[in-house]
């Protein structure tokens, strides 16, 4: 059942060295505050899972938290490379990073399979792609009715899912609105789930009977973390800080500039303070 806890306590209790951790949020609702706290608590040897490693994964990787990345697109959207990710892959700095690389369709289906208690997902995908040669987690199976071949990937079942949402009610039900990404699937696929929210409210005020809701008993920890998705955005609360994304490029190109920025803005901060500017 859901516990309402501080961000520091949520990470301390649920995220351990060596675990597989998925922080999701498709451009929208990226759980930055939680990622910063993982960095502050110096987790190591994590397998980080995420369709679109964003700035927060660039930072986790650059700070040496990760030993493997499971992903499908690792860039700074609309800007360019994730330079810390590149430095880890190209030069092993600060430590080597192993890659398990998928397509978006495969990752999304692998989460859905995990949420569904299935061992694998099937998709029409990867036809003719060399990804099949570099990722042993891509198999081919045959349709028992038509004989057609389709791709199969193992279900994703992270140890911990971390997502950010607009709000939770006091019973612990969580509402996600707008671009909902793969967050619901990620939470349901994971063994444990931490949700940071903009606010905790008396009434969830779901706009529709069919709104995307994570019921309380699917979430282990809820953390009130207003602004917790910045510099990404929270629909209905604040916009994407596009300037932050652009400014990150020069900071992240240089190892020293990166470390200085992390020291000033993350390591020297607490869960209550949140980097406002890059």
């Amino acid at each position: 059942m859901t516990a309402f806890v501080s961000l520091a306590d949520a990470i301390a209790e649920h995220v351990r060295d060596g675990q597989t951790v998925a922080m999701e949020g498709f451009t929208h609702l990226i759980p930055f505050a939680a990622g910063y706290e993982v960095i502050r608590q110096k987790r190591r040897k994590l397998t980080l899972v995420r369709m679109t490693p964003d700035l927060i994964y660039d930072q986790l990787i650059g700070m040496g938290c990760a030993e493997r990345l499971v992903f499908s697109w690792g860039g700074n959207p609309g800007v360019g490379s994730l330079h810390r990710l590149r430095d880890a892959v190209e030069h092993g700095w600060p430590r080597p990073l192993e890659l398990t690389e998928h397509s978006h369709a495969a990752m999304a289906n692998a989460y859905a399979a995990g949420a569904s208690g299935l061992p694998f997902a099937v998709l029409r995908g990867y036809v003719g792609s060399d990804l099949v040669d570099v990722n042993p987690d891509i198999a081919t199976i045959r349709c028992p009715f038509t004989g057609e071949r389709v791709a199969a990937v193992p279900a994703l079942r992270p140890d911990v899912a971390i997502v950010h949402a607009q709000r939770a009610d006091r019973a612990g039900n969580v509402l996600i609105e707008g671009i909902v990404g793969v967050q619901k699937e990620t939470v349901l696929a994971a063994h444990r789930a931490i949700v940071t929210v903009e606010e905790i409210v008396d009434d969830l005020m779901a706009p529709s009977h069919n709104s995307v809701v994570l019921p309380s008993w699917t979430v282990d920890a809820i953390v009130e973390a207003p602004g917790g998705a910045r510099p990404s955005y929270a629909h209905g609360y604040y916009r994407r800080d596009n300037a932050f994304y652009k400014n990150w490029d020069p900071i992240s190109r240089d190892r020293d500039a990166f470390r200085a920025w992390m020291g000033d803005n993350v390591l020297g901060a607490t869960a209550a303070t949140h980097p406002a500017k890059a």
Partner: protein
Amino acid sequence: MTRTDYSPTEMMTVAAARALRHDDVCFVGIGAPSAACNLARLTLAPGITLLYESGTIATKPDVLPLSIGDGELCETAIATVPVAEMFNYWLQGGRITVGFLGAAQIDRFCNINTTVIGPYASPKVRLPGSGGAPEIANSCGQIFIMARHGSKVFVPTVDFVTSFGHGDGGDHRSRLGLRTEGPSLVVTDLCLMKPDPETKELAVVSIHEGVTRTDIEEHTGWTIRFADEVDDTPPPTSTELDVLRDLHARTARAHEATL
């Protein structure tokens, strides 16, 4: 009325926009494709349907998104669906007529690399990776490719096939069981290219104003073919340029402002 005060990138965007039709349903990527698709929507193809992989269906952004999932896309969509649904019901379900892809490397058969320069295990440059591209390339009715023309991009052999184009050419796609047309148009800042109907090797079919055959040859990493009839790409019209520049100006203002 045509104009002469335009950039090669503007020409590329305008040429791509013109290839789209009123009844197309497009899977739009960020950057150049997004500009082209929205220019089409604001000019010749107002009925066009744009989907972004973030799950936004039939979106009509007033400004161009910086990322694939800006709030603007959701606010102007008729619906926003989970990402798994977008890839399953909409892309894989065969409901997209045109998909756009960019490329770090592309070969003469439109195989695309966005994964790595150099060997996969010890990369010279690690690129962002596939994203939705392998399945976009497999599932859309046809694929339009946009890329700046240069010999480091248009290479004899890609270092890694992220997204399958026409493979070794000919009927390679259908031999792999693919039922879609695959890449049917490449739009660059120099010219338009299309695969030969039989061999599937790219050939130049239209050259932009001020560009010579030699320019194209020098900027292509293989001996590029020219179709029997090569058109002159009509330069951008005043309307096209005005609409595109308005769009970019609105976008720049919006991206500077944050709450």
